[in-house]
């Protein structure tokens, strides 16, 4: 069982959240080639290591979270709300 410490709701089971994948920087839509855009859409680092990723607390506060998780042990060490506490 994976427990995520939501900054709003406290420790909650991961099945309240949806996993949205590793964090990547989005190219500027107005200034990018289709091939570069598709690389952003499809390619993944898929590391077996500490990874920064985004989750959505769909059955809770409905806030987006950034968290650092180790993809081999599933240990989570850092959780933050996207956009900070006030957003």
């Amino acid at each position: 069982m994976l427990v995520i410490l939501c900054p709003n709701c406290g420790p909650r089971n991961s099945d309240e959240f949806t996993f949205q994948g590793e964090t990547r920087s989005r190219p500027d839509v107005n200034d990018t080639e289709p091939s570069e855009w598709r690389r952003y859409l499809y390619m993944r680092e898929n590391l077996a290591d500490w990874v920064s990723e985004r989750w959505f607390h769909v059955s809770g506060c409905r806030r987006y979270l950034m968290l650092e998780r180790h993809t081999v042990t599933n240990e989570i060490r850092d959780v933050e709300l996207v956009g900070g506490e006030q957003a």
Partner: protein
Amino acid sequence: MSRSPWPRVWDHHELASSYDVVIIGGGVHGLATAYYLARNHGITNVAVLEKSYIGSGGSGRNTAIVRSNYLTPEGSRFYDRSVKLYERLADDLNFNVMFEQRGHMTLAHSDSSLRTMRWRAEVNKVEGIDSSVISPDAVRELAPFLDTSDHPRYPILGALWHPPGGIIRHDAVVWGYARAANAMGAHIHQETEVTGIELAEGKVAGVHTSRGRIASGTVVNCTAGWASLVAAMAGVELPITTRPLQAAVTEPVRPFLHPVIVSGSLHTYVSQTARGELVFGASVDPFASYSTRGSLEFTTGLANHVLELMPAISNMRLLRQWAGLCDMTPDFGPIIGPTPVEGFFVDVGWGTYGFKAGPVAGEAVADMIANGRPGELIGTFGLDRFEAGTLTAEKGAAAVGH
């Protein structure tokens, strides 16, 4: 029966300093590639490198289901070739792989899934594959233990019926290919982990392993679970996310379930092995991970779903559960072909359907290596389709439907 020890069926070799072809991954894909390289193309100076023991990854963790009733014409054609190779595999390898074509039944619990099944059946028929939509009465006749009454939460409205589908002994497939490839001269190196891929002027020059360096101009990545990490050693990016898939098996009981039963809506599939155990599989876990630890959510969810289908088995006990790693691609199609690095090929991204494609993938990869370019059967499965935006659309038949 003799009491003397059985002879080894494949040899132990020292690592040679060079091979014509190095295959990374000693599962069904890698071993089948070595076998077809030797048998179809006479290429025998081949090494298969396996970091653990052969068949220790996806090849030994899948639920051993074989079928070809996919949604796209290219998918159906490809998996149909695999079924045909599986049908004569025991003969080819002189090894009993226990292929039982008991039929494969995908249940429809809603009008929309019934509609997709009609679509799949028509695509399959055009490709000459035995596949049709059957009524709840026919479902009841083929699998009397399913709850076909009109009151369950997920009523059975019909099913996609695929008689050539079935189950196979997955370990025997691995061992059979290994023995046959070994007999024709391929070297199978177990406990030999690849630690790096050496490039020279944009081409593959060799691989570094836990047992030393090997020079080779042709390297094939046939791994599952670690495909992205192995490709990254050659500087190749892949559109893959690795997810665990959990499965479980019950205590053995007398035979009562003949066909393979699949329910996409309930995210589960079940078959009864020759030994009498029920083998259950599910969809992939809801987040990416390289962990193969089981979870309680899986077991409770599985029990709920299976009892929706077969209320009568509520007293059966699970013996064990396990997980395998699935390399998911954005379009639920595999990635077979060359990469931007000359001499470095991939046969990866097999998601949850890699085992059933083992023979055809091995045959196609061997053909690609011998001829220097991908053949017609795998032409649409190249890595370049992601940059070009020409994805396949196999999700409708590959996501859960085993």
